[in-house]
């Protein structure tokens, strides 16, 4: 019923697989800040991002690497510079997981309420 109505099994698996690594990448506040900066502009270099934050360019580069591994940013090369930009789909898939999971819990809690009120 409401379990299957949300999605096909393959979609569920895909979203489930995407959400963990994305949220893990977002657990770090520096990485969240990097993403919010990238979401405002189009591209940025590690140096540009480093001017924004009290940490080294090398540390920024490590965070960007983690974000790239989670599929949240993509890099491209322009001359000697590496430019980073946001790839929004994994983040929106993860948000979708939150919404779908929340809806499943709404349904379960509703059934819990019904069961509790049945037992008199």
């Amino acid at each position, binding site marked *: 019923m409401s379990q299957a109505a949300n999605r096909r099994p393959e979609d569920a698996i895909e979203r489930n697989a995407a959400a963990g690594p994305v*949220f893990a990448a977002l657990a770090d506040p520096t990485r969240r800040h990097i993403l919010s900066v990238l979401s405002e502009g189009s591209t940025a270099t590690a140096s540009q991002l480093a001017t924004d934050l009290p940490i080294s360019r090398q540390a920024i580069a490590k965070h960007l690497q983690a974000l790239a591994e989670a599929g949240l940013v993509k890099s491209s090369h322009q001359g000697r510079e590496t430019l980073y930009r946001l790839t929004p789909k994994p983040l929106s898939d993860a948000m979708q997981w939150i919404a779908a999971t929340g809806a499943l819990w709404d349904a379960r809690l509703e059934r819990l309420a019904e069961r509790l009120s049945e037992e008199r």
Partner: protein
Amino acid sequence: MTANPRTAQREITLPVGRERAWTMLRDAEGLSGWLADEVTLEVREGAEGALRWRDGTERAVAVEEVREHRRLSFVWREPEGDPTLVEISLDDVPQGTRIAVIEMPVLALEAECRSLDSPSRAASEGPSMLAPLA
């Protein structure tokens, strides 16, 4: 919304006491009919079992924490899926019992723990989802 955007959270307040609400969490019989259609599980820390739904879907489940009348947490996953942690807490409120649920991928929870240990975590950071777990 103050909810941690890296978790799914929901709650419901019911006009019953915590002991009564706990009857829906304390064993397979209590859990079946709402958490899943069929529950094969002993509600005991470390116990493993299975949940099945009428549409044929199922999940493997492992019980993490059992605090009578207070909290039940477990890790579950779909056959090919990543494990997520579910924590169900019961709290007294004037209108009865608030039943609050948080669900989070285990991978993400581990990263949150590492982030809390890391010196880069600002003191001004907002409340973490782990606070209710304490």
